[in-house]
């Protein structure tokens, strides 16, 4: 069985400061990892994914994530937070054994204060 943990229900950061949203995973086989964002009253939007190759993945809106196989982590980062980044963020995982069946974490609410 595969699983995702997002250990923080909420992350608070000041505008202009760097942000990190944490994600750890457990799979059998090779992991494929995703980050999605959900703005209020809207569906989920894809941010970025790691399939293979470079461990540092760059995505939409200036976000990036680092795949760390030894720590089974895929933390989402941004060098300088914007108030408009305030939203609910979900990490998700699948594997070569699970095909297209994604398992999502519980979500982390990011609050960026002016």
């Amino acid at each position: 069985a595969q699983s995702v943990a997002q250990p923080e229900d909420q992350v608070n950061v000041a505008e202009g400061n760097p942000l990190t949203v944490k994600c750890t995973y457990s799979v059998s086989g090779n992991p494929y990892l995703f980050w999605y964002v959900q703005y209020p009253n809207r569906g989920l939007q894809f941010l970025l994914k790691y399939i293979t190759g470079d461990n540092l993945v760059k995505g939409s809106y200036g976000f990036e994530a680092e795949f760390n196989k030894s720590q089974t982590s895929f933390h989402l980062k941004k060098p300088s937070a914007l108030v408009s980044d305030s939203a609910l963020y979900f990490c998700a995982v699948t594997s070569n054994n699970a095909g297209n069946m994604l398992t999502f974490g519980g979500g982390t609410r990011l609050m960026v204060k002016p």
Partner: protein
Amino acid sequence: DVKVTQSSRYLVKRTGEKVFLECVQDMDHENMFWYRQDPGLGLRLIYFSYDVKMKEKGDIPEGYSVSREKKERFSLILESASTNQTSMYLCASSGGYYNEQFFGPGTRLTVL
């Protein structure tokens, strides 16, 4: 622009009613998914379909069924709605393997 649409944004039903949630995508994707989203639990997969008339159970299929008669349309059916099925339901589609899923706006279902 890619689009996944869901038949209703808000729905209120009574216990025991049969409920249909419809999802349509215009991207010619072979994969379609139904999730429910509950606070603190993230998204949980109910069913997915990888082709017309094909379906696979997800993590929480009990109390639900699905239908996919056409490639662009994927329906979620609650045979006899119960209060514990009050939730946000999200439909998604994707093409190929390990590609991003595109989500609809969601249907907030309340079962009284």
